[in-house]
């Protein structure tokens, strides 16, 4: 570019700058300024729904409120086996798959399909467990779950669950937030948003993890998304302090703590009156709840005081971080009126790439560690008269292939199965669900669902329905439209309702 051209451009810029005078600002921008001013004036007057906003400051966002209709369930315990347990070694018995064991997978099962790790032509793999029918309902359950088999008649199986996400993170997000992408509220948040909590001294939505790792999708699967943050899942620990930083710091007694929380909340109330941000109300509620939780949480989260017969029943090990302890805690929390307890147990991703992830080793050990506590939970809820009003959900984020995984086309060191989206098993119990029932069918080798297909949206719709919600009406306005958990999908699985 020549020097002259540069000068011309500089000149033009200078001219433009000169024309953007104070007068120009007033002439051209006055309407915008006016609109902003009006907005802020009206905003502070809060002429729309002023009553609601006014009362918000005084009310607790977690106060219990009525659902759309009287739901059968009051609480939910959702046991998520993170990594996705194999349905073919637990509930979906496929003797025909045994006959194909070791044979090349027919091309019809591979054409146009995408797998997470299977490449080329894998071998079919028969069930790596013996099955028997159990209970009056004749449910097929494998030898890996000897305890659960004894309560088969309490369960409703969903044998043909389908998802469209074959990686852990997105599939878990879809299962819990209704979308494979980040940013939406989790089902527990929706439930506490809709129902509040029956116990003011405890959070409405508690999360407990085990298996040594958090689920792949991270904390966003119990996040509040665009809902006020008071509805997010509160992760409690089973070792040490259940909730971090809940204790009073050294040298601060409870009265001083109370006085400082009151002072902070007074300041927050003024902030709220000025800006009307619902997050401020959340913050006030959280401070107050944290104060109340100081007493109640350590008490509820302490399993040491449980009688010996309970410890024997669940197989709990006080002081350790383990799945059994979490299951017992889930029962205690539900008993105390917590709405939604989410258990995540990591370690079910049985690819066969290492011993812990082998379908005939690590997987079996996971079954052994979880079978007794889950069974104990169902029976303990039952004898406490709580099973009818507590919905227990068990499942993973997808299923596993009838083919043996051959990572990158090579034989894996151990037996394992790849991620499978087209058909897997989940079960529900209690909370107004049919007892001893099975819904949905897969083909002879458990590859695809042939009847009674359900999606994660259907499961979410059903959970909400049992709590008394029409999933199409439980909405939250955000970015100009009403959002709901099931987005534009979801159908209540009426077939499994008692």
């Amino acid at each position, binding site marked *: 570019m020549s020097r002259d051209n540069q000068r011309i451009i500089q000149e033009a810029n200078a001219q433009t700058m000169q024309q953007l005078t104070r007068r120009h600002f007033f002439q051209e921008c006055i309407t915008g300024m006016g609109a902003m001013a009006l907005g802020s004036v009206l905003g502070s007057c809060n002429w729309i729904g002023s009553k609601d906003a006014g009362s918000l400051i005084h009310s607790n966002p977690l*106060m*219990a*409120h*009525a*659902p*759309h*209709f*009287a*739901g*059968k369930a009051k609480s939910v315990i959702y046991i998520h086996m993170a990594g996705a347990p194999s349905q073919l070694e637990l509930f979906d018995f496929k003797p025909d798959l045994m006959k194909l064991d070791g044979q090349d997978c027919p091309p019809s099962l591979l054409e146009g399909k995408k797998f997470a790790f299977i490449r080329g032509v894998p071998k079919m793999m028969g069930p790596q467990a013996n099955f028997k029918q159990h209970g009056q309902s*004749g449910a097929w359950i494998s030898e890996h779950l*000897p*305890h659960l088999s*004894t309560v088969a008649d309490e369960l409703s199986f969903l044998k043909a669950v389908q998802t469209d996400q074959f990686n852990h993170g997105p599939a878990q997000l879809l299962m819990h937030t209704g979308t494979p992408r980040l940013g939406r509220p989790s089902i527990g948040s929706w439930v506490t948003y809709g129902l509040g909590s*029956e*116990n*003011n*001294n405890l959070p409405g939505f508690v999360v407990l993890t085990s298996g040594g790792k958090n689920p792949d999708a991270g904390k966003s699967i119990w996040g509040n998304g665009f809902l006020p943050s008071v509805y997010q899942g509160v992760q409690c620990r089973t070792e040490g302090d259940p909730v971090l930083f809940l204790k009073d710091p050294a040298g601060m007694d409870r009265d001083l703590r109370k006085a400082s929380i009151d002072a902070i909340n007074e300041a927050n109330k003024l902030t709220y009156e000025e800006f009307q941000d619902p997050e401020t109300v959340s913050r006030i509620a959280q401070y107050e709840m944290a104060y109340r939780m100081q007493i109640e949480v350590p008490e509820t989260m302490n399993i040491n005081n449980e009688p010996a*017969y309970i410890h*024997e*029943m*669940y*197989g709990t090990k006080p002081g350790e971080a383990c799945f059994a302890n979490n299951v017992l805690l889930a029962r205690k929390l539900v*008993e*105390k*009126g917590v709405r939604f307890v989410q258990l995540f147990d990591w370690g079910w991703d049985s690819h066969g790439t290492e*011993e812990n992830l*082998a379908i*005939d*080793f690590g997987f*079996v*050990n996971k079954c*052994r560690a979880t*079978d*007794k506590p889950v*069974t*104990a939970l169902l*029976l*303990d809820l*039952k*004898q*406490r*008269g709580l099973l*009818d009003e507590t919905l227990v959900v068990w499942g993973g984020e997808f299923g596993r292939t009838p083919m043996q995984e051959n990572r990158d086309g090579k034989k894996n060191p*151990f037996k394992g199965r790849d991620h499978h989206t087209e058909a897997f098993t989940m079960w529900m119990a209690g909370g*107004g669900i049919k007892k001893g029932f099975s819904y949905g*069918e897969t083909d002879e080798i458990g590859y695809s669902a042939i*009847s*009674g297909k359900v999606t994660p949206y259907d499961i979410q719709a059903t959970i909400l*329905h049992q709590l*008394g919600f029409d999933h199409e009406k439980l909405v939250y306005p955000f970015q100009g439209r009403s959002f709901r958990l099931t987005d534009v999908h979801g159908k*209540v699985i*009426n*077939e499994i*309702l*008692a």
Partner: protein
Amino acid sequence: MLFITEVVAHFHPVLVHLPIGILLLAILFHWLSTKEKYAGLSTAIPIAYLAGSITALLSCITGYLLSGSGEYDETTLNLHQWMGILVAFVSATGYLFSRTKNYSQLKWVSIALLILLTVTGHLGGTLTHGEGYLWKGSSESKKDSTAGTKLIANAQEAIVYKDIIQPMLQQKCYNCHAATKQKGGLRLDSEEWIIKGGKNGKVLVAGSIDSSEVYKRIILDPIEEKHMPPKGKSQLTEQERVLLQWWIASGADFAKKSKEIAQTSAIKTALSALEKTEIVASKRTDVPDVEIAKASETILESLRKKSVTVFEISANSNWLSANFVNCTKWDADIEKNMSSLKDQLIWLKIPGAQLQESSWKTIAALTNLRRLSAEHSSITDKDLEQLNSLNQLQYLNLVDTKITAKGLLQLKANTNITNLFLSRTGIGAQEFNTLKLKFPKAVIDTGGYNVPFIATDTQQLHPKEK
């Protein structure tokens, strides 16, 4: 060209409403103009009649094009066609009379037109919505799509086609594929028609679901254009689909009974489900059928201030549910407030409550209670005796209390109890039978479940050990 006429034909159901509206307006104007106040309207009458007759003519043309599809019952169609043509003709006459201000003749024309419009409109409705659409109960048409097949006394003895398949077809298919309307030339309202098929050939191949169009269309993805029943219409339930599949695959016999056809466990379940209640969420019994006046908000608020969770059981109900999980001791204030909720309160939870005699008296006065959870509470046989007044009680939880069998046996009025939870009470195993006789409707849960230890529970499996 064919395509265009088809599209134009589809406008018939829209266009027909124009002559109906315009001609009715013309008649109205005519009658109004006889009054002095509205005399000025008379100039509008010929215009209305002209517009009415032109749109009537257009409706006739589009209607004729639509009739070519051959999907309708011919007798009704013929009648509708000629009545429609008559409407166009009579309205044209009306135009001529009104232009020449021959009002005495026009009066007869308007009366004739009124009758013709009504009859033609009704016939059109019959063609679109099926025979007898006017009198079909609104409850039937509004039924949830999950509420499916009729109930059968004995599904195994039932004739599969007549008792199971036909009612299903009648409910979900006859609207468009029976006597009045035959979309795609297909009728499904008798054995002969089903076997004959539609204008594109056979729809049922006995023994083969893969070649039976009547089944294939049903399992198509609902977003596909060819999916049946069409989008927005009541769909087949999963149970109906399973039974239809079973019937076709087993040879589509029109005379056989259920028990004469081989059944898988899924079919057995579907069949026995026909005998039971319809697949809709059953109504709960622990909520009264009637509604009640709203409880005072000040009372609810004062209870909430004492950490009592109390709220309506659902958004459109005034029945109340209360949970005292954070309030195990009652003061006089609470007792007073609870007494004022005696009409509305139906569910009450007092886990771990340590209550005085007066508080139990308060509870005894809550005579609408359906559910009472008093687990871990201080309740004794003496307190329980007072609760005899709770004759609506269905759910009673006394887990981990000092209650004995004697205490329960003194309950007389509480025969509605359906769920009784008694684990960890002072009740011995030998007394359960006596209790069972006392509460015949109740499922009595005595707990004491255990999950026996199995050696593998704590063993880890490793490659070497295998």
